[in-house]
């Protein structure tokens, strides 16, 4: 029997629940840490970013309007499908990050656990971040956290799966929709994650994944007037100040993080808190 020929894949973007090629028609080779060819990834352009924002905006009313319980169920289901793809993720994380199988397994397990952890939060956010406020008057005043809207997420450049999930999960768990720019040199786990999302119950457009040059796409997302918040985690160091500045042009919420963030650390609520806004209601009470 002759040897099987390996298939050199060319992956696509994930926008609005579909897998389109980049509008620009470009792709770029992805290699492992030793420089061996892994696959081609689509090289997204500003117009792909624009389409992704439009898709995320379209998905926002449905996703933010779904009950917290329902969002939790959908995210748990995603974790189940992630689990089913565990071996593929282990291989991809191993190749992308140059770690041994054992370490890669630990990273993938931690990533899936992270997703489950955030899935559990959906129906507890309002309890923990909301409040009934004591006021001096015959009013019942209460504050509830509401999702911010469309969040542009620059995924971490180093941690290709655990880092990615640590930044995407809190955004969608809080009821936002996301446009994610995957790690530039390690995009394959993000591509596989988008395949997972497409085959789980997550509505199309809630998470959109762009691959390509972060420095090329990020400025367009930072200045886009229909993006409500920006997560700078994976932003190139030289670009951070500019991105913050153009984000200020349309008053976006910006999450600044240390570029060397350690994602193996236990997560906390800070990333959920960063992408919700408090709505306070005053309601007159009985006479």
């Amino acid at each position: 029997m002759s040897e099987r020929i390996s298939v050199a894949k060319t992956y696509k973007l994930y926008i609005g629940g579909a897998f389109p090629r980049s509008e620009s028609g470009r792709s770029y080779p992805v290699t492992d840490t030793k420089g061996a060819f892994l696959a081609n990834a689509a090289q997204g352009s500003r117009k792909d970013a624009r389409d992704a924002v439009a898709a995320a905006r379209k998905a926002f009313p449905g996703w933010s309007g779904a009950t917290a319980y329902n969002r939790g169920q959908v995210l748990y289901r995603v974790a189940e499908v992630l689990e089913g793809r565990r071996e593929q993720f282990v291989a991809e994380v191993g190749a992308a990050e140059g770690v041994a199988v054992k370490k890669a397994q630990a990273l993938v397990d931690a990533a899936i656990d992270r997703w489950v952890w955030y899935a559990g939060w959906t129906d507890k956010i309002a309890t923990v971040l909301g409040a009934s406020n004591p006021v001096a008057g015959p009013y019942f005043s209460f504050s509830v956290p509401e999702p911010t809207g469309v969040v542009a997420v620059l995924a971490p450049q180093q941690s290709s799966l655990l880092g990615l999930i640590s930044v995407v999960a809190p955004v969608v768990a809080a009821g936002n929709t996301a446009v994610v720019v995957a790690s530039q040199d390690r995009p394959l786990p993000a591509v596989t994650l988008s395949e997972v999302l497409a085959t789980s119950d997550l509505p199309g457009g809630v998470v959109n994944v762009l691959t390509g040059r972060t420095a090329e796409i990020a400025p367009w997302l930072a200045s886009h007037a229909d993006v409500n918040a920006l997560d700078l985690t994976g932003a190139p160091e030289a670009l951070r100040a500019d991105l913050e500045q153009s984000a200020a042009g349309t008053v976006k919420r910006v999450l600044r993080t240390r570029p060397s963030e350690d994602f193996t650390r236990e997560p906390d609520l800070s990333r959920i808190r960063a992408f919700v806004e408090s709505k306070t209601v005053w309601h007159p009470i009985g006479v």
Partner: protein
Amino acid sequence: MAATSTAPSLPPALADAVRDDASLRRFLHGLPGVDQVGVEQRAAGLGTRSIKKAAKLWAIDTAISMVDLTTLEGADTPGKVRSLAAKARRPDPERPEVPKVAAVCVYPDMVATAVQELQGTGINVASVATAFPSGRSSLKVKLEDTAFAVDAGATEIDMVIDRGAFLSGRYGQVFDEIVQVKHACGDAHLKVILETGELATYDNVRRASWLALLAGGDFIKTSTGKVTPAATLPVTHVMLQAVRDWRTQTGQLRGVKPAGGIRATKDAIKYLVAVHEVAGPEWLTPDLFRFGASTLLNDLLMQRRTQLEGHYSGPDYVTVD
């Protein structure tokens, strides 16, 4: 058929066509058939033209000036018409240089409100009439409907043809109706809605276009917006060919108005390319080409801002309608 009632003087060949029912039918069925594959391919081909930078900005401004800002809902209120009129006068309040739209298009009972709001602005008030959108009523009612809108001050009337009569081959009846509505319009411009989504074939679109032009329609309009498919590029191509051929034969300029389903700037620009290439550059004016639209205007404004400000704009920065 009361063919003698046509006002415009036509060249002999066309005058002969409207002499009686039989000759009208002969004329319409004698029109060359539309090459379906060809027209669709041509429309798709012209759609790939790349219009950028200054040309795009010009196209956006031209498209804005061609918009018939439309609200045709059962839930229309005077308040909604007033806010629509305000938007027509100044589409982008932060940028006074944005051209005003061509017309505001409403139901007949809203005409008075629109006229009051648009006095002295040069913006036309268009009204749908003749039992819009189905056209299923008696001629008497249709003429009353038209007169009601004209009396209220409408300067443009969008009438629907009787598709039932057209499809069953009673061309003379359709012709007479258009002629009489045109008469009822007086000085108001008449746009004839063919409702191409119900005409089934391009050949029918071509026949209906010629029928409307022969009967004296100032504009031919694709659709009511209540039927899917509404305006499409190939259908508009066929209609643009009709007005171009009409000009060749009579020297008169007649307009085209695609309506319904045009929501994006990109689509609007494709239409402008088609106008330029199929009919000719003379038609690139609000007097001869219009867009029947409501959501298109917001997208045009957002694209205009994107061009000028260098970053993408969002729906939070334009009015909600």
